[in-house]
């Protein structure tokens, strides 16, 4: 589902990733870890084509990233749900509208949008807060809105960048369980985190990123 082959990435003259090769299979839940600034976010950006590799190939859900044209990038992104570290919620829109935004771009019927949004909000246990603005929610609730927005269009791949970075232990656990539920439905999930507690004891593959490459691969 996600395949990196000898991928190298520079930011100007700074080497970020060097000859990176790894694969995340269809329906797999995997973790990407490493110290801050090691390139976890860059790696995720390469998956949703916010950055392009300088060398090597990346294939995501059948899309060859290097061959993508500007006009086709949106169609790749509709297959990739993203949970951002900084949430990227729109504070002038309600929870419902934030989540619905991901469906409006699909030209869906408003009735279908309403049904799907309320359904996903129910799954993340926020249906009762559908008409509240994000600034009135706790950090954990905001994170669940972001997950709902990433999942509402039923993507084949879900990426999460430090999804529990700003949350307490209990909320982190709840968010982790939510990712497991999503993965159990067949979605490929890749979570970038520097928090051991998130992957320890999960029995899932963990890629340890260090010095521009995967230093080791363990099982959490």
């Amino acid at each position, binding site marked *: 589902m996600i395949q990196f082959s000898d991928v190298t990435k520079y930011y100007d003259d700074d080497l970020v990733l060097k000859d990176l090769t790894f694969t995340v299979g269809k329906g797999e839940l995997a973790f990407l870890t490493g110290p801050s600034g090691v390139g976890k976010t860059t790696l995720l950006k390469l998956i*949703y*084509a*916010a950055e392009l590799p300088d060398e090597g190939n990346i294939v995501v859900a059948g899309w060859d990233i290097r061959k993508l044209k*500007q*006009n086709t*990038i*949106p*169609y*790749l*992104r*509709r297959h990739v749900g*993203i949970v*951002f570290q900084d949430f*990227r919620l*729109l504070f002038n829109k309600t929870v419902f509208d934030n989540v619905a*935004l*991901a469906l*409006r*771009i699909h*030209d*869906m*019927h*408003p009735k279908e949008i309403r049904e799907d949004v309320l359904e996903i909000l129910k799954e993340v246990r926020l249906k009762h807060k559908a008409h509240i603005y994000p600034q009135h929610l706790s950090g954990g609730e905001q994170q669940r809105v972001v997950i709902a*927005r990433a999942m509402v*269009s039923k993507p084949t791949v879900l990426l999460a960048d430090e999804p529990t970075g700003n949350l307490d232990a209990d909320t982190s656990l709840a968010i982790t369980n939510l990712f497991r539920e999503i993965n159990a439905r067949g979605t490929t999930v890749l979570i970038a985190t520097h928090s051991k507690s998130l992957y320890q004891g999960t029995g899932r593959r963990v890629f340890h990123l260090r010095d521009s490459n995967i230093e080791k691969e363990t099982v959490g």
Partner: protein
Amino acid sequence: MRIFLYSLQTALKSIWHEKWINLLTVLSISIGLLILSSFIVITLNMDSVLQRWSKSFGLVAYLDEDLTKEAESTLEELLRQDEDILEVRYISKDRAAQEIQAILGDDARILEDFRENPLPSSFELRLKTELLDPELVRKKAEAIQEMSGIEEVQYGEKWLSSLSTIAQMMKMGTVFLGCAIFTAIIFITYSTIKIFFYRRKDEIETLKLLGATKSFIRLPFLLEGLFIGTTGGLISAFALFGLYSVVLVKIPELLPSVTILILSLPLEAYISVPLAGALMSFTGSFFAVGKIRY
């Protein structure tokens, strides 16, 4: 269609949310368009006046003294066959004398000193309107002068030249003003939409990451620009209608002789103002949104 409706809804919300900036932009556009349309209307009226004047413009071809009646007829036939000449009027020596007597009135007694009628026969020629360019008229006059039996060709060279210069200056002024206002309106809309674009930068970034196409991102801004320009144009058209109605009523009172020269504006002229506003603002918005990179 649903995307269009959503974009329209987004544009209308933004118009309401940013109502003061939008109002200022609309008013600026309407003032610009009103100045331009007023200038065009003045130019059209001036042009109409000049056209009326130029219809009375003519050349006079004086004939040789010893020209026979047959030769005069042949010459008249030749002139009538010329496609550049609209009208040929023969003025005999006697007719010329009668006309000059009518013009001179009591002073016509000075003609009594002549034993014979000193005035030559002539042809009064009226050229096609599109030929009323000083250079073309000069060439035509020279060509007629070359014809056998023609003594001299006279026409109001200076008058025609001045008329032509005025008409050209008015047209050039309109084009210059049109370009200036066109650019100004594009720039005004560009600035306004650019401000909105930057204010919604976070939303645009999120939309890009969610998989929104470029047209989905652009459409609300283009619709907003279109609305601003059309509204500005509508206000301008109504103001023009009001001003012109006042002029139509007031001018005949103040200058009765000018009444017949004022054109009434057709509906198409009023419709073209909001259309021009829409086109200019749409162009400004298009450039404001610019290239979208993922």
